């Protein structure tokens, strides 16, 4: 196994292999494709959030040139049942008159041009018998059950001969007697922390082109996981999954919105089949607010008890998130339970059913949410006890996974803390009301963590007689630098120049592999490429024992030699979380330090600098890993200070379905002074290449660090995100 850090090609900051295609406009995203005879589609959504569809009147469309047809429920086939972990929403639309959320598809306009369908769509009259929507605070609440103390690897269920995952998050965990320990604790802190709902808003809204040739379906699709598209379409449309081809080389951002298959993809394929022509659907920005999920609003009640030295004695953490009437999504915020050593634990979650569509994972799910409460509470505890926040974390450092006692696959968080503190100048930071003109300056820190999500991975590697190496794997390029990393892995394993390695990706004719979400791809597909190279070497050794693979193949009369790589999980699991059955707890860690400026007169909040220092296993490409972390830190700044999707309190419609009313960071919000650091580490258990997940862990904990920096600057604690000028001014006014 080549997991030493000595070889220079792995880890080297190579520029991205797809760079030239991206800077010239040559990179094709799904909506960039055109097919002969193709129709454009626009989805007509329900205008009310709850009720019954009465009639769809299309008479006004007669005047619009280019409209070909309007499909309604009567035109649709009865869809077969689709499954969780593949489909994002299990209740497929256009199957009944019932309306469960505003924007739920009720009709599809098809036309020969985009202009025609855009002009026609608002002319479709949708008559509904509206009922009052179920609003937040009025929905039924459902407690997430689960065996007490159940392992969080995710349980696997059997159904119809297939294996399906059962949602692994949110079940109660009770260790010791948290209530009693809290009563007798030397110091207690706690409260309620809230997150608003937020939408992913990738720059590329989802698009799909469906083309049928007899029973054979080809989909050009914006996805973060092509392998789930064939089974969902096959289940829904009653076709053979082997007859579905997915073409998806480049995905224009996703952040979770393109992870599982959404109804619009099924509807596009169904529409194309009905009209017998290729159909393209490109969701508008507004469509996307009701079509591809969101991170649900959540409320967290968290309490910590500690002794006088700051050692935790008890943690109580209860979380509630909104979900749809027909869809259950649990935002697993209590997954932070394994961050610190603590003898008594009491966690639980519930969901509240209201009139919205399905929520879905979003950067960063689970711990990204839970750390807002836990790390904020840790900072409050440090303040109460007058202990340095970093020192408090070290006093509660978990040398094994607390709830299971399993060893970590690898954890170098102590080094990450120390390096981050040094790079930031944490111990020399100015205290007590430093000012800079009208600005008050504050600093804060937090721990970052994310449980490793693992999938099986597959790849093929071909070595040709001329020495060229080709990697084949059906993975998307979503900008993580994965394709570049794969070439580095193959160059390292086969000891060939990286320039001789190419990658074929983004087509389902290639070996099917895992997704590009949940910071999992380097682990599953990087491992598969390494294993394929090792297999190739083994196959080649049957012909020649010359160490150089290029010399060896030249000695044979083979045109090429091939290796297949399969990265499997223990127990043949289709997915595992936090280590699964590996015997190890697998998780990425980090520490983030921030400096902010607050203008107390105007309530303005500005980022001045950040340091992120991480323990994420072996870093495969320093440059692309850094980019991942800068992306996540920026994302977290947006979460902490600006992003919020609001449901209209009367109609349960999303307000501001655009990027003007919903703010995300712009260039001027993010200073150049961001330092990203990785500790030198090789994880021998998480993958076949020493790596763990990089990326999303960088967006965890940051909100709590920012809130503590605000407290340091102006002395107010904000527990509701985002920290807006209005909230700041209100809080400052109350002091």
């Amino acid at each position, binding site marked *: 196994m080549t997991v030493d850090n000595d070889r220079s090609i792995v880890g080297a900051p190579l*520029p*991205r292999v797809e*760079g*030239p*295609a*991206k*800077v*010239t*406009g*040559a*990179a*094709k*995203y799904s*909506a*960039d494709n*055109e097919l002969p005879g193709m129709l454009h589609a626009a989805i007509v959504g329900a205008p009310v959030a709850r009720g019954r569809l009465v009639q769809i009147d299309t008479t006004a469309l007669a005047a619009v040139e280019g409209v070909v047809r309007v499909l309604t429920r009567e035109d649709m086939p009865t869809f077969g049942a689709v499954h969780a972990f593949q489909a994002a929403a299990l209740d497929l639309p256009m199957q009944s008159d019932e309306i469960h959320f505003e924007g739920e598809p009720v009709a599809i306009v098809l036309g020969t*041009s*985009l*202009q025609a369908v855009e002009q026609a769509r608002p002319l479709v009259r949708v008559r509904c018998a509206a009922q009052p929507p179920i609003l937040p605070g009025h929905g039924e609440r459902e407690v997430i059950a689960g065996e007490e103390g159940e392992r969080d690897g995710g349980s696997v269920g059997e159904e119809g001969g297939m294996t399906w995952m059962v949602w692994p998050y949110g079940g109660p965990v009770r260790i010791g007697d948290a209530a009693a320990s809290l009563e007798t604790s030397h110091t207690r802190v706690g409260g309620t922390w809230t997150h608003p709902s937020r939408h992913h*808003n*990738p*720059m*590329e*809204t989802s698009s799909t082109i469906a083309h049928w040739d007899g029973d054979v379906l080809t989909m050009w699709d914006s996805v973060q996981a092509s392998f789930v598209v064939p089974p969902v379409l096959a289940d829904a449309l009653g076709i053979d999954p082997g007859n579905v081809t997915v073409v998806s080389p*480049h995905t*224009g*951002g996703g*952040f979770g919105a393109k992870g599982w298959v959404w109804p619009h993809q099924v509807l596009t394929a169904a529409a194309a089949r009905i009209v017998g022509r290729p159909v393209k659907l*490109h969701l*508008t*920005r507004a469509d996307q607010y009701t079509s591809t999920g969101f991170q649900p609003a959540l409320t967290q009640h968290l309490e910590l008890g500690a002794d006088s030295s700051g050692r935790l004695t008890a943690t109580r953490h209860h979380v509630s998130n909104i979900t749809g009437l027909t869809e259950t999504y649990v935002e697993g915020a209590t997954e932070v339970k394994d961050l610190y050593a603590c003898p008594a634990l009491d966690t639980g979650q519930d969901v509240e059913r209201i009139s919205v569509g399905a929520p879905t994972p979003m950067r960063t799910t689970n711990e990204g949410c839970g750390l807002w409460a836990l790390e904020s509470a840790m900072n409050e505890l440090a303040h109460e006890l007058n202990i340095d926040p970093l020192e408090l974390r070290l006093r509660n450092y978990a040398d094994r996974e607390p709830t299971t006692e399993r060893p970590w696959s690898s954890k170098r968080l102590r080094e990450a803390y120390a390096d981050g503190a040094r790079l930031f100048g944490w111990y020399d930071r100015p205290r007590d009301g430093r000012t800079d003109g009208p600005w008050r300056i504050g600093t804060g820190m937090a721990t970052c963590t994310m449980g490793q999500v693992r999938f099986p991975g597959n790849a093929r590697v071909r070595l040709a007689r001329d020495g060229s190496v080709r990697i084949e794997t059906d993975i998307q*390029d*979503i*900008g*993580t*630098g994965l394709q570049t990393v794969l070439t580095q892995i193959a160059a390292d394993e086969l000891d060939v120049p990286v320039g001789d390695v190419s990658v074929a990706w983004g087509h389902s004719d290639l070996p099917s592999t895992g997704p590009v979400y949940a910071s999992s791809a380097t682990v599953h597909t990087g491992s598969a490429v390494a294993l394929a190279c090792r297999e190739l070497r083994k196959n080649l050794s049957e012909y020649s024992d010359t160490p150089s693979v290029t010399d060896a193949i030249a000695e044979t009369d083979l045109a090429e030699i091939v290796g297949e790589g399969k990265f499997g999980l223990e127990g043949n699991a289709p997915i595992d979380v936090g280590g699964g059955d590996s015997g190890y707890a697998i998780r990425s860690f980090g520490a983030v330090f921030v400096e902010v400026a607050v203008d107390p007169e105007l309530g303005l909040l500005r980022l001045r600098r950040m340091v992120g220092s991480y323990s994420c296993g072996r870093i495969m490409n320093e*440059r*692309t890993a*850094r*980019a*991942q972390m*800068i*992306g*996540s*830190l*920026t*994302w977290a700044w947006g979460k902490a200070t600006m992003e919020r999707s609001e449901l209209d309190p009367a109609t349960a419609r999303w307000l501001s379905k*655009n*990027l*003007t009313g919903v703010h*995300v*960071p*712009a*260039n*001027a*919000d*993010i*200073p*150049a002074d*961001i330092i990203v650091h990785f500790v030198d580490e090789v994880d021998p258990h998480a993958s076949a290449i020493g790596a763990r997940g990089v990326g999303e862990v960088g967006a965890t904990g940051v909100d709590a660090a920012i809130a503590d920096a605000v407290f340091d600057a102006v002395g107010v604690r904000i527990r509701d995100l985002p920290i807006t000028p209005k909230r700041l001014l209100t809080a400052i006014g109350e002091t």
Partner: protein
Amino acid sequence: MEFRVNGEIHSEQVSARTSLLDWLREHPGLTGAKKGCAEGACGGACTVLVDGVRMNSCLVLVAQCHGSNITTIEGLADVDGVLHPVQKAFIGEDAFQCGYCTPAQIMSAVASIRERHTSSAEEVQEWMSGNLCHCSAYPQITAAVLAASKKVTG
């Protein structure tokens, strides 16, 4: 209607309801300009240069373009395919992730440099803030614009 796109003359009838963005993408098939919203609100994934000025092409009707000279990302490299200094700098500084906003960022950068709004990191950040990048490659974009600006303006 007659106008030039990347130096090539187009003279044809255009539909009154077609945006420059949709026309570019669907007629000559120049799909480098992206659609992020079609309403001038996504921070210009559709940015192209119209007579050297950056425009959100989703907000321009192609019918307004008579006599104009339009440059898209596809027309930026020279005839031999040698990349423009801004394109090179974007690769060199790793100024993108998914790449969806990238053609627009590059067109904006070319204009910012030409407009002489690139003398410092702060100035670049301001003048490049019309283009959102939700993958958030902002520090690298700023570095790329500064690097290219040095090359272009000497």
